[in-house]
């Protein structure tokens, strides 16, 4: 999704208020943006705390800063700067974290972002965007360009199967209807799962939903989603994020608040490193039961 990010931002490069800061990352991806933005593209070096506070200062002069790094370097190291300098003041700083979840694979745990949006959504006024498909990135960026609040954009790798087309962007989308459980997925891992679920028989195939914006506001949960939930009586939430602060907790609270919590609730999420070994993103997903095979097995077992 990095290249789509770059191309999308290029269409806004002439905006004199746009300023882009990177923590010395973006090789073979952000060069066109660097060349187009000139002075307003700043390599802030390996200094994320300073970079975030500088962005807050830039926003105070009515600029629109975007800050970019590998996801964990962006939300964990400068967390206090995000909290105090950006969010407490409600400044329109967009923080782009590349490599959500286990995306950096065998690079190791320091490069994984397993608790990013949960940690950030504790902060005042921040909204998190987790595009599921590459096609979600341009409309998300257009939306962020006019936002007046802090934002976190979690990028991953588009896993949409080639033949399929991503449906037009919306925070809540139903990708597939079915008579089985209601599945809600956060993030790109929905791509592989979508293909696998399509092969299931109609009567037990789940309805599949994707959610791309957090936190969850119970007042805007789509009626169609609530209808699916009522019909299935079983909610299954899947996300590449730890349980604490994740979409599963948020959705359960939201549904309980409006008296719509179904009788069955299943949650699959990131569980760290159960074996103590490292591998690709697929390896870690499998260890956590986030891969399509494990999900299908779970669904089969549920009958």
């Amino acid at each position: 999704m990095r290249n789509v990010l770059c191309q999308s931002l290029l269409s806004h490069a002439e905006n004199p208020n746009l300023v882009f800061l990177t923590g010395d990352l973006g090789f073979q991806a952000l060069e066109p943006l660097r060349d187009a933005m000139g002075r307003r593209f700043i390599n802030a070096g390996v200094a994320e705390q300073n970079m975030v506070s500088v962005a807050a200062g830039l926003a105070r002069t009515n600029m629109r800063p975007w800050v970019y790094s590998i996801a964990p370097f962006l939300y964990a190291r400068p967390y206090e700067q995000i909290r105090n300098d950006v969010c407490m003041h409600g400044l329109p700083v967009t923080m782009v974290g590349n490599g959500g979840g286990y995306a950096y694979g065998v690079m190791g745990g320091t490069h994984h972002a397993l608790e990013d949006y949960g940690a950030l959504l504790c902060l005042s006024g921040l909204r998190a965007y987790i595009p599921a498909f590459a096609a979600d990135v341009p409309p998300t960026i257009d939306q962020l360009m006019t936002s007046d609040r802090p934002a976190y954009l979690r990028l991953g790798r588009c896993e949409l199967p080639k033949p399929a087309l991503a449906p037009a962007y919306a925070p809540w989308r139903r990708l597939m209807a079915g008579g089985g459980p209601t599945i809600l997925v956060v993030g790109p891992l929905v791509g592989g799962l979508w293909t696998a679920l399509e092969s299931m028989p109609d009567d037990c195939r789940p309805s599949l939903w994707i959610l791309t914006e957090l936190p969850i506001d119970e007042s805007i949960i789509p009626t169609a989603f609530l209808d699916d939930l009522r019909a299935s009586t079983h909610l299954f939430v899947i996300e590449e994020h730890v349980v604490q602060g994740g979409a599963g907790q948020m959705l359960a609270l939201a549904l309980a608040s409006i008296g719509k919590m179904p009788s069955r609730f299943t949650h699959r999420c990131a569980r760290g490193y159960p074996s103590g070994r490292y591998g690709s993103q697929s390896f870690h997903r499998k260890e956590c039961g986030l891969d399509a095979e494990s999900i299908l097995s779970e669904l089969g077992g549920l009958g």
Partner: protein
Amino acid sequence: MISDVSNSTSGQSELELPCRIRNARIRLLRMHYESGIGHIGGNLSCLDLLMTLHHEVLQHEDTFVLSKGHAAGALYVTLWSRGKIGEDQLGSFHKDDTTLSGHPAPNRLPEIPFATGSLGHGLSLSVGIALGKAIQGLPGRVFCLMSDGEWQEGSNWEALIFAAHQQIAPLTILVDANGLQGFGSTGQVAGMEPLADRLCGFGVPVEEIDGHDPIAIRTACGHSASGTRIIIARTRKGCGVSFMENRMEWHYLPMTEEQYRQAVREVSDE
């Protein structure tokens, strides 16, 4: 109430700076006494800097950032002295339902662009403002007041490297070097002297002045240099009150009534 220094703006405007500073010092003591809070030592050490800067240096297009947020009282009383904060508002300092909390709150006063209190933020924020001015061709300078102990925060060194490397609007970093911090002297905790030599190593000009001499402050800050520069202002914690001066405990202690009366007497007799 043994001292009541009012801020009749019209009256204050006719006063000389030393007289204004004395009045502000007395009012600052009253604020801290009535609130029963500490931090008076580090507020008194930087009051001359804040008063001189706000009365005689800052122009409309300039920006000031208080990085040592625990000196909020000194900044509030300075803004009161400038007629930017009213008597009633100042009287609410550190009390329930106030906008003047013990460390500056966000988005409450146009003269305070950022909430501070956790050390090591103000310099990067100032650099961001100076960068924004430079990119957009906006007028004005940026001034940032820091403490000396604050340089133990690593983020400041990130900011200094960045500021020295980038082309930014004029940025003056003032260091309130009172030599004392929360639980010891800066020399005992993490000695950084000679501070000027260390800061010079980052490629920015550094000047040392007497932080209680308004003429020296005005001269150093009024300089219209471009880029980033640092002024190390040598100060005394608890300045103006004999039993507080250069004593670490006045980073925290509230005043008793007797101490408050003595402090006001001493400052009034200056």
